């Protein structure tokens, strides 16, 4: 009897505990992550007014207690009708795609080298790749302002090598943006690649070599296909944040470097046009959600025991 009561009590506390464990973080995320998106969605359908907040409510109580909903799509037609916004989206996707490809070309050999390094070296190199995660993103981007400036070291080296006669404009160009992107997001590429290459079964490569396969061919026939998921994860981890990047184009890009993160920022802070900024954010979100879902699928696949 006593045992039964104990069991019921324990079951009850477990139930309550379970509810709290799930409910508290869930509640937080609903309030501070999901609801905000619904508000952005709502505001993207409303008009600008001169007030604080500078938007017209879309839900109003009309006469006779009738709830009126005024949804207007004008912000969206405005966004898609304006060449500037469309160009900003296209340009962001292009910059992100090229940066991702460059990061992959640099990151794959690096990850390979780290995964195949001997003993303590592997730990040290791994730590060195993850260290930039812990140092300020803003300051690492800032470092390039000094390096790329007209009197900076990069120009000095190029002149010393006789490649250029006088300092050239490197800062505030698209080149600087690509450089900043690859530099900042390279660790995001290397880490998933590293874990994919590290897991690789070396006996497969030995078998290929025994069967007379040249190392370069073995790489393309065995290593590359088997690390496909790491490549995909790394590319998505670079591409997704790069599309919406604000700091790098703002600090390293020129005034004509159009990127959507910067456009949203300017619409919001400079033009105080909250509805258009919201509409831009929603469109950006829809574009990125395809890639986010893909990333989730890749990562879910990794978790499953193979």
């Amino acid at each position, binding site marked *: 009897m006593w045992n039964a009561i104990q069991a019921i009590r324990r079951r009850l506390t477990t139930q309550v505990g379970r509810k709290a464990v*799930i409910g508290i973080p869930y509640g937080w995320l609903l309030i501070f992550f999901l609801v905000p998106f619904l508000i952005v969605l709502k505001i993207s359908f409303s008009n600008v007014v001169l007030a604080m907040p500078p938007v017209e409510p879309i839900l109003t109580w009309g006469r006779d207690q009738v709830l009126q909903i005024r949804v207007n799509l004008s912000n969206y037609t405005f966004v898609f009708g304006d060449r500037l916004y469309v160009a900003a989206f296209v340009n962001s996707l292009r910059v992100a795609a090229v940066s991702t490809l460059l990061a992959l070309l640099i990151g794959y050999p690096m990850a390979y080298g780290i995964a*195949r390094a001997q003993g303590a070296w592997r730990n040290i190199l791994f730590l060195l790749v993850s260290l930039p995660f*812990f*140092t*300020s993103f803003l300051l690492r981007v*800032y470092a390039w302002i*000094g390096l790329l400036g007209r009197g900076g070291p990069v120009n000095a080296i190029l002149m010393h090598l006789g490649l250029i006669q006088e300092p050239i404009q490197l800062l505030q160009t698209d080149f600087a943006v690509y450089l900043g992107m690859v530099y900042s997001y390279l660790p995001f590429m290397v880490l998933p690649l590293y874990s994919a290459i590290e897991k690789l079964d070396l006996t497969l490569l030995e078998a290929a070599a025994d069967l007379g396969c040249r190392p370069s061919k073995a790489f393309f026939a065995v290593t590359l296909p088997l690390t496909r998921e790491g490549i995909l994860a790394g590319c998505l981890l670079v591409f997704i944040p790069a599309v919406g990047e604000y700091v790098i184009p703002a600090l390293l890009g020129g005034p004509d470097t159009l990127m959507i993160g910067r456009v949203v920022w300017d619409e919001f802070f400079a033009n105080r046009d909250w509805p258009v900024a919201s509409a831009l954010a929603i469109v950006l979100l829809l574009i990125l959600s395809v890639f986010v879902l893909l990333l989730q699928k890749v990562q879910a696949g990794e978790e499953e025991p193979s």
Partner: protein
Amino acid sequence: MRTGQSRFVRFMLVAGFAFLYLPIISMIIYSFNASRLVTVWDAAHSPTLAWYVELFSNDEILEAAQLSFRVAAISATGAVMLATLAAFALVRYRRFRARALFGLLVTAPMVLPEVITGLSLLLLFVALTQWIGWPAGRGATTITIAHVTFCLAYAVVVIQARLATVDRSLEEAAMDLGARPWKVFWVITLPLILPAIASAWMLSFILSWDDIVITSFVSGPGSTTLPQLVFSKVRLGVSPDINALATLLVGVVSVCVAIAGTVMMRTERRRARDAQIAMGAH
């Protein structure tokens, strides 16, 4: 089969790490440069600590650093507490209502552009002020809430990975011996996942300490964090005292990461040895 690295891979390793670290090293070197023109090395008067002295006599910077530190410490603590619960929910309760949505909500802040997260949180705070009169204004509180939300995602990933490797038979044994779930958590599970909680806290602290975009959306007049101050300064070009600040931050972070790395490696080694001894005893 060759065990060594090919020349190409070795070259890419050296070049890649040079690419990652030369900018940081150049910032450190220039922080000791006497010239105000950052790119000109004033050999006659360098190295100098002048910029460090200026940094520590700049009240604006000190005040911003203090605010950033406070926000980062509180945000990291909040994020880690919520993340521990979330990691438990995801690892231990394989099935509950809307688990897929929960998983998405947990990881989404990590990959979404900061402009979107920042904009949406600001609009929430504006709406909340309208509906319930809270928060009364934007400042440290709203920044902290925003930081908890996006740090949570990173903290969950770190803690979840660790929790998944915890041997459940230890917890079950404690339960069989009559320990309550809460006690099992404190005595068995928490010590086992403590290294992950510590690194999640550190990662959250640094993410919060460093954030600029989300902070700019949700902060108000009178609450300027260090990154905001740095950003407004470097937009106008290079400024030597920022080099000094960067050097200090990189130094502190490197020391912390080195300590954490050594401690983790040592515990890992001890655990492996203990496991070996335990296996041998059977």
